[in-house]
């Protein structure tokens, strides 16, 4: 019986039989292992959260007072920003240092990641090499940037050197993943076409793979630059790498100058908004191309 006959017979059958068909329960989605594990996790997290609220040690803290005090601090910080320990030109200079740190680490990291990313892409490399690099890189990414900086600080001492090396390290890890996945998206047929005409690996990479994935590479790199800017602020504070983050750290830990902290926060925010703006413009332009 072919398909259309089957269909026809389905509709001419006696109503009773059709009802029989309708009464049977059909299941579209089956409970699988993943969904069971997921549900168990969610339920246990919910129970733990509720349990937590009953068992916190509240001591003498009066919630309302604390909230009010914090709000007052925030008000000072955000509504009365002003310079105290440095002036506008020094501020701009320090922001420049932070941006420079972000730029340097993104540039060096991007360059290294470009080559390792080629070796990590399965369509351009061997399975073994690709898996080794991807495994190593997954480990590098799993450790946060701050930790890498502190690890390198053991050898280089706390400061800008450790910050550059540590941030570059994490950048390389991040960009290798991003780049190699972009390379793997490149149409296998294009690579086949050039290979079939006698082109060698380097020629295929530069004439086909990179032009095909250039827009992705650029937008990933810029995205990492934004992340590195934020990292550079944090590293200035946490690792004494200098820049605006260091000023922030001094104001909050030594001078307790809330007004200047507010000002610095606005500075950092302004640059972040600017970068976001450039990034959006860049993406629109790339998409048009």
């Amino acid at each position, binding site marked *: 019986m072919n398909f259309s006959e089957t269909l026809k017979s389905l509709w001419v059958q006696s109503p009773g039989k059709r009802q029989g068909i309708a009464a049977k329960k059909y299941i579209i989605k089956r409970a699988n292992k993943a969904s069971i594990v997921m549900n168990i996790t969610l339920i246990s997290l919910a129970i733990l959260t509720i349990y937590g609220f009953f068992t916190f040690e509240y001591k003498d803290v009066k919630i309302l007072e604390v909230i009010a005090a914090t709000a007052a601090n925030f008000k000072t910080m955000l509504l009365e920003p002003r310079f105290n320990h440095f002036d506008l030109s020094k501020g701009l200079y320090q922001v420049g240092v932070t941006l420079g740190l972000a730029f340097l680490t993104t540039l060096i990291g991007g360059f290294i990641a470009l080559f390792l990313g080629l070796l990590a892409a399965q369509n351009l490399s061997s399975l073994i090499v690709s898996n080794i690099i991807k495994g190593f890189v997954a480990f590098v990414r799993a450790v946060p940037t701050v930790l890498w900086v502190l690890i390198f600080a053991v050898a280089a001492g706390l400061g800008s050197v450790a910050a550059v090396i540590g941030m570059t390290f994490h950048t390389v890890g991040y960009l290798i993943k991003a780049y190699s996945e972009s390379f793997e998206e490149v*149409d296998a*047929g*294009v690579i*086949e*076409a*050039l*290979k*079939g*005409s*006698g*082109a*060698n690996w*380097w*020629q*295929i*990479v*530069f*004439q*086909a793979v990179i*032009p*095909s994935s*250039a*827009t992705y590479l650029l937008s990933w790199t810029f995205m990492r630059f934004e992340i590195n800017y934020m990292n550079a602020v944090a590293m200035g504070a946490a690792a004494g790498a200098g820049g605006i983050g260091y000023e922030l750290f001094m104001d909050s830990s030594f001078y307790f100058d809330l007004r200047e902290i507010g000002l610095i926060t606005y500075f950092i925010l302004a640059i972040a908004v600017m970068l976001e703006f450039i990034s959006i413009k860049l993406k629109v332009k790339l998409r048009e*191309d």
Partner: protein
Amino acid sequence: MNVLEVKNLTKKYGTETLALSDLNFSVKEGEFVSVIGQSGAGKSTLLRCINRMIDATEGEVIFAGVNMCKLDKKALRKQRRKIGMIFQHYNLVNQLTVIENVLHGRLGYKSTLAGVVGSYTNEEKRQAFEIIDMLGLTEQVYKRCDQLSGGQKQRVGIARALIQNPKLLLCDEPIASLDPNASKVIMDHLRNISTKLGITCLVNLHQVDVALKYADRIIGINKGKIVYDGPPDLTAEQIHMIYGSQAGELIIDIGGRNES
């Protein structure tokens, strides 16, 4: 003179799939051979075994007097320069211009560095423009390939293959994604390339009528075996043999509409 000789060619994917089983044929210089057969018959595998994009399991491919299966990597690259390849999906770098894509056909002749930076000799550029002109793409030279129609893309593909100065063109379903008009343009170009330039063409097709109209010779493949090898005047029975017994009528029907 035989440009291509295929002897006892067998290809197994894994241990299960026998894609090609013991093929034997030879192709003369300037001959236009069409390989026809159902989807999955092994046509693409056959073409790729010839330029060793796929390594054969057994057998020999002798191209221009050289046994392709015995070449090391470097010699193989050198030999591949003499074999152009044309694809159903064109396989161009869409982000680059027509002229840049055409010049890619010269990469095999260049040093690594010159290829990497895309530096071509004046003579190579002159040839590229000439071929582009011959294929009627002069107006599109500086256009990015993603702005071209399917038929134009395929002509760029042909230009890229021609600039290799090939002895043999392997065409894997070159018109399967094109409308009838563009298909005709492409098939006419391929026919000319074979007749006027003396370049041997091995063209996979699944439109029987097109194959019969253009080819000097038909090779029919069914389930990895050659079931017909001869002139393009097949009887209905022979077509049945190639396409399997029940499908014969149907395929000729569809073929008449020039379906992709």
